[in-house]
């Protein structure tokens, strides 16, 4: 089977399990929405927030909720030693990495389909930019976050403190991407054109490439016992 087919096949398996159980997706969407509601209450219900604060609130909700699902995707693979079964199969660790990163990417995207509208309902009355302008920023962060997250969750899933270790290791790693995303989002919420956001989007692309390449290259070492 070609690499592409293997990856598609692994991705299909994980999405089938996720859609059957819905445990990661429901947890991510619910927790993210809860953060947004709490932030709305904290900033004063009905009061307007500026674009910078709004962007920060959106990304706190997305990233904190995404970590929940990310930890679960790899923990499931470690149950009953399934990850060892993948490692002794003809599929390469690099293909496993790509498939897992795509699962995380998909879960983030699906939860954002709920969180972004909730965000605009709660905070969006004074933003001149709409949700469509956020799409390139969301896609880039999803790519970088899911690549780095897949690598880190492959390390943390084998530990007893998975839920604690994953965010502690992951958030510092993606800090540059997050900072750029918040700034770009603030620009998008202020309805600045995409060309004006290139100062943030271009380094975000570079960070995504770095996280993806590093994840792909380091994954075989992080996933093995020795």
């Amino acid at each position: 089977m070609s690499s592409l087919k293997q990856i598609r096949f692994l991705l299909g398996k994980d999405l089938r399990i996720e859609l059957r159980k819905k445990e990661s997706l429901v947890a991510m969407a619910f927790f993210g929405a809860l953060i947004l509601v709490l932030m709305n209450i904290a900033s004063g219900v009905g009061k307007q927030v500026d674009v910078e604060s709004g962007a920060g609130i959106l990304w706190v909700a997305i990233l904190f909720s995404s970590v929940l699902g990310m930890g679960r995707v790899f923990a499931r693979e470690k149950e009953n030693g399934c990850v060892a079964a993948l490692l002794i199969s003809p599929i390469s660790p690099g293909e496993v990495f790509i498939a897992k990163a795509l699962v995380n990417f998909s879960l983030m995207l699906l939860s954002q389909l709920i969180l972004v509208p909730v965000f605009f309902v709660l905070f969006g009355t004074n933003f001149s930019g709409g949700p469509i302008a956020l799409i390139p920023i969301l896609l880039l962060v999803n790519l970088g976050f899911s690549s780095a997250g897949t690598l880190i969750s492959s390390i943390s899933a084998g530990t007893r403190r998975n839920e604690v270790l994953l965010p502690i290791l992951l958030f510092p790693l993606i800090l540059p991407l997050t900072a750029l995303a918040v700034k770009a989002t603030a620009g998008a919420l202020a309805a600045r054109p995409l060309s004006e956001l290139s100062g943030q989007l271009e380094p975000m692309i570079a960070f995504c490439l770095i996280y993806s390449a590093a994840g792909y290259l380091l994954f075989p070492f992080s996933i093995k016992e020795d």
Partner: protein
Amino acid sequence: MTESSGSAFLSISGLKKSYGGLEALRGVDLALQQGEFLCLFGPNGAGKSTLLKIIATLLRPSTGQVKVLDFDLHEQPEKYRAQLGMVSHQSFLYQDLTALENLEFYATLYGVEQPHKRALELLEQVNLTARADTLAANLSRGMQQRLTIARALVNDPSLLLLDEPYTGLDEHAASVLRDQLQILHSRKRTIIMVTHNLRRGMESATRLGILAKGKLVYLQEKSKVDPTSFEELYFRQLEAL
């Protein structure tokens, strides 16, 4: 993988493995011909599971080499792994997939031509056809064990590794495993099993070995072994620890 005349199917030379300061394997040499069934006995901590994990490419040796015919396992792993099957302490089953889906998943992963057909065949062989659509999580322990055996055979492996396969098996699952091993052995598949269970190990194997303190201290064809003296030798190794 086919046997070339005169060359060993599996050869292990000078194999050592250390975890930090702990030496799990201290120089193992072994050669097996295609179709041999080796049963390795040894106490806890003897290095049995480590040896199997190295052969399965789950671990890299500290020094030494493992070759299956001319494949260096750690240089050309994918082709080798397509011919490998393993029954481990863990089931390797996805709890949220059905019995049939689990087998289809692994069959497809191994590039089996008709994965659905192969999965149904295996379910029949392990008497689980009626439970094909039951989630693995909802199967009884004995049924999960039979499904685990079926999973290991999904690619009709040339080399089968078994790590304490009889531990915790109910009588039905044990008899299914014994039958499947006999079928594989009659079809010239090479099998390496590590176990504590002398009776189970000796009833199926063609060669017997004892691994103690990371070294292969005994290796002999079963036909040349007197069961009573072998048992005495094995228990002497246990007492020496």
